[in-house]
């Protein structure tokens, strides 16, 4: 027994006080008589004070002493055993999906790990504290910090690992913070630290509860469509993590209807599988039959709706005009239009304000307001490229002769490509929704249009514009990826997302950004009650599908410290408090009632 406030033991002085009161108080045996008036005189008690008699050990004395003792112990904060310094067990649970892999016997590393944690909890005293943390990109505390074992047990029962592959570092950091200097740290995973690519964790008990298993899973998936031909396809990358080829039945279901069911053979390692699929089908679920890991056996694929970029070539007839046409023709999902999304035009035309939402790429001699002092010059390098700019992705300008570059005014804009202090490619100031790029270049004389960088530049421009069109950047994502959807307008109603049972409100804006939820499945973006988009969110994780690294064993050890963590709850969390309180109350009530009963009986 320990005491939270030992000063409260001073209250024990009440016991000798009670004894003294009983010792000096006359408590005679009761006797019921008739005619008390005959006894009543002026002298009831003998003169000269009370006689020192033997202390009468009465029920009342015992009850009063018992009540005083119980109340004193409550004041002193008495707790059973080391309740005030309870042992604190902090458990980091590996939440990766491989923890849910079933062996032939149906047992999972999760189940074995939970049993081990429960055995550790059972070793704690009843007042011990437990904190449960699940690992992940964002570790979460599922029980605690410092809850009683009963609460931890129920949280453990509810825990189902499902996360994609991740490092335990963040979870470990959180666990160490919560354990402090006194808590015991335990890590439950399906493999050893080495098997997981983690360093040994000093001062912690690492419990590996896995076992090597073979598995076939979908580690990448894509749904394509060729609108012109009215056909599409599903491209799956299968990972066979065993030593032999595996045969699985593959089903494709659109809505409630099975579209196809085929027997596929996956050779050991990674293989790709392409299945034809008719265009215009709704969201399909592609599933392999169950094996060790269920989570990687199914993907949800939404049919992509390509964003067509309308391009307008207003360059004057000539080499540049033709080269641009050739570059555009090589791009997919691009259409020609006179009022398109992207306009290629001579730089002299920049004085005309652009139509709303039209991006412009200007070539040639810029308007006079943009030109600085100097003469036309040709440059062969060295070119300084703003590599972070998406327009220059994959661009090197090696061997390019940049011809006819005029000096530009300092206020002309932000230089993306320059030679020395002379800008070659400039992003002109203007609306963020309709940027303008100035190629300070004479297309008729430069060799850029024959260089490999030319189609890349044109393609980058088109893709940049495509990204600015309303709709999602992609239609199928992996769990944990950022999903960006441009609305292109202010939302007319509250935006929400819904995936399975999970539903939450999205911040209003012209762009929706969210992380693909860990649950996976079909993600719906809703505007009020209207469904705007459907997005496929899939568990595609090669690292988690490979179950061959599973291992069992225990490494490391707890670091025992003398002190545990202090109980965070009040004294009422200790059973001794209630025992003492009940005892005190019962003693007081009995002391109140029993003498009256005895008197009546007498």
């Amino acid at each position: 027994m320990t005491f939270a406030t030992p000063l409260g033991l001073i209250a024990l002085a009440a016991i000798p006080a009670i004894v003294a009161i009983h010792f000096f108080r006359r408590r005679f045996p009761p006797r019921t008589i008739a005619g008390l008036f005959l006894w009543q005189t002026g002298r009831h008690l003998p003169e000269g004070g009370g006689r020192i008699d033997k202390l009468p050990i009465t029920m009342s004395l015992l009850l009063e002493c018992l009540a005083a003792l119980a109340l004193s112990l409550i004041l002193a904060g008495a707790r059973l055993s080391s309740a005030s310094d309870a042992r604190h067990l902090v458990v980091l649970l590996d939440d990766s999906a491989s923890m849910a892999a079933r062996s032939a016997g149906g047992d999972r590393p999760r189940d074995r790990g939970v049993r081990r944690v429960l055995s550790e909890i059972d070793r704690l005293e009843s007042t011990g504290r437990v904190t449960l943390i699940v690992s992940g990109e964002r570790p979460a505390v599922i029980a605690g910090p410092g809850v009683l074992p009963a609460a931890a047990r129920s949280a453990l029962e509810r825990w189902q690992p499902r996360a994609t592959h991740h490092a335990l570092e963040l979870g470990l950091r959180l666990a160490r913070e919560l354990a402090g200097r006194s808590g015991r740290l335990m890590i439950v995973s399906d493999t050893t630290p080495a098997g997981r690519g983690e360093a040994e964790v000093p001062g912690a008990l690492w419990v590996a509860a896995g076992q090597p298993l073979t598995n076939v899973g979908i580690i990448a998936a894509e749904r394509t469509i060729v609108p012109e031909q009215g056909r599409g396809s599903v491209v799956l990358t299968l990972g066979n993590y065993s030593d032999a080829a595996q045969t699985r039945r593959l089903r494709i279901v659109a809505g409630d209807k099975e579209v196809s069911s085929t027997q596929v053979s996956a050779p050991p390692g990674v293989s790709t599988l392409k299945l034809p699929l008719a265009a215009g089908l709704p969201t399909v679920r592609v599933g392999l039959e169950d094996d060790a890991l269920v989570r990687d056996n199914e993907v949800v694929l939404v049919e992509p709706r390509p964003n067509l970029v309308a391009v307008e070539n207003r360059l004057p007839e000539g080499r540049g005009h033709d080269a641009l046409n050739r570059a555009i023709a090589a791009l997919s999902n691009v259409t020609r239009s006179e009022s398109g999304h992207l306009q290629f035009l001579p730089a002299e035309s920049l004085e005309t304000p652009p139509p709303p939402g039209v991006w412009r790429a200007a070539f040639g001699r810029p308007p006079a307001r943009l030109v600085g002092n100097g003469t036309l010059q040709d440059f062969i390098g060295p070119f300084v490229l703003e590599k972070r700019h998406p327009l220059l992705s994959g661009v090197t300008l090696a061997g390019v002769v940049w011809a006819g570059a005029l000096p530009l005014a300092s206020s002309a804009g932000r230089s993306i490509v320059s030679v020395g202090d002379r800008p070659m490619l400039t992003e002109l100031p203007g609306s963020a929704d309709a940027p303008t790029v100035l190629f300070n270049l004479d297309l008729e004389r430069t060799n850029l249009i024959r260089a490999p960088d030319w189609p890349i530049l044109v393609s980058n421009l088109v893709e940049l514009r495509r990204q600015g069109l309303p709709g999602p950047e992609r239609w199928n994502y992996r769990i944990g990826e950022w999903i960006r959807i441009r609305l292109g307008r202010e939302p007319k109603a509250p935006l929400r997302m819904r995936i399975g049972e999970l539903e939450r409100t999205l911040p209003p804006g012209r762009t929706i950004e969210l992380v693909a939820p860990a649950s996976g499945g079909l993600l719906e973006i809703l505007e009020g009650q209207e469904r705007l988009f459907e997005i496929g969110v899939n568990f595609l994780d090669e690292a988690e599908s490979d179950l061959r690294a599973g291992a069992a064993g225990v490494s490391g050890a707890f670091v025992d410290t003398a002190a545990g963590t202090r109980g965070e709850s009040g004294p009422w969390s200790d059973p001794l408090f209630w025992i003492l309180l009940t005892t005190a109350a019962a003693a007081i009530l009995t002391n109140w009632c029993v003498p009256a009963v005895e008197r009546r009986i007498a």
Partner: protein
Amino acid sequence: MQATPIRADWPAIRAADAFRIAMPRTPIGGRSGERLGSGTGSSLEFQDYRTYAPGDDLRHVDWAAYARSDVLNIRLYREEVAPRLDLVLDVSRSMVVTDDKARGYGALAGLLACACARTGADVRIITSPANAPRPLTRPEDIEQLLVCDAAASAIEAAHLPLRRRSLRVVVSDFLFPHDPDALTNRLARDGAWLALIQLTLRDEAEPDVTSGTHLIDVEGNGELDMVLDDRAIRDYRARFSRLRSGLSTGARRIGARFAYVPADRSVRDMGRALAAAGVLESA
């Protein structure tokens, strides 16, 4: 202490049933019966002469006297009555303060009920100043009235439903504060005869010396811590003796009977004690 009726030991009472209520020597009133009344009646006991008046029964003319004095005189005889008897029973809790006292009270009440029956009187039982007296037809019926749960004795009440010219037998422990003369006068008022019977335990009359005791009045009149030493016992006995002698003197002063009956005596001894005190007489 008990609130249920006292159960009397009727076999013992029947065995000792050889008494009746002792009648006073003075004439008494009542309905026509077997005992001599105070008025003129048709008994065989001569009472007086008076001058003949028309309508008198010629059979009562003393013809011998007429022959001697030539005056018609009528012989008057005493009337025979059945006396009215009011038996006042104390049903306060003090009468059953112990089992011995309750048992003794049952025996005494049963003995008096039998004596009343042998007397041939019109017996009414009074246990409360508020309730009407109950006639006693059978001695055994008295048990139903002995429910001793009252907080005070009926005798303490200023008014009791006593009948005029009735014989009165009062049974109590008289252990309540009172003025004996006032009490006896009140009980005897308009009555023909009064008998006071004090029933107490021997321990109530003569308690022993003990150590400290927490005394609790059975009728709720207080509690008292007291060391029952020699002096306290001596004082108590003196006060009890004064109480009893006060009652005795008060009764004697008005021509009433007073009897002290220890509750722990046998029924037969109780009968003898009452007979010795003139409350009962042999039947």
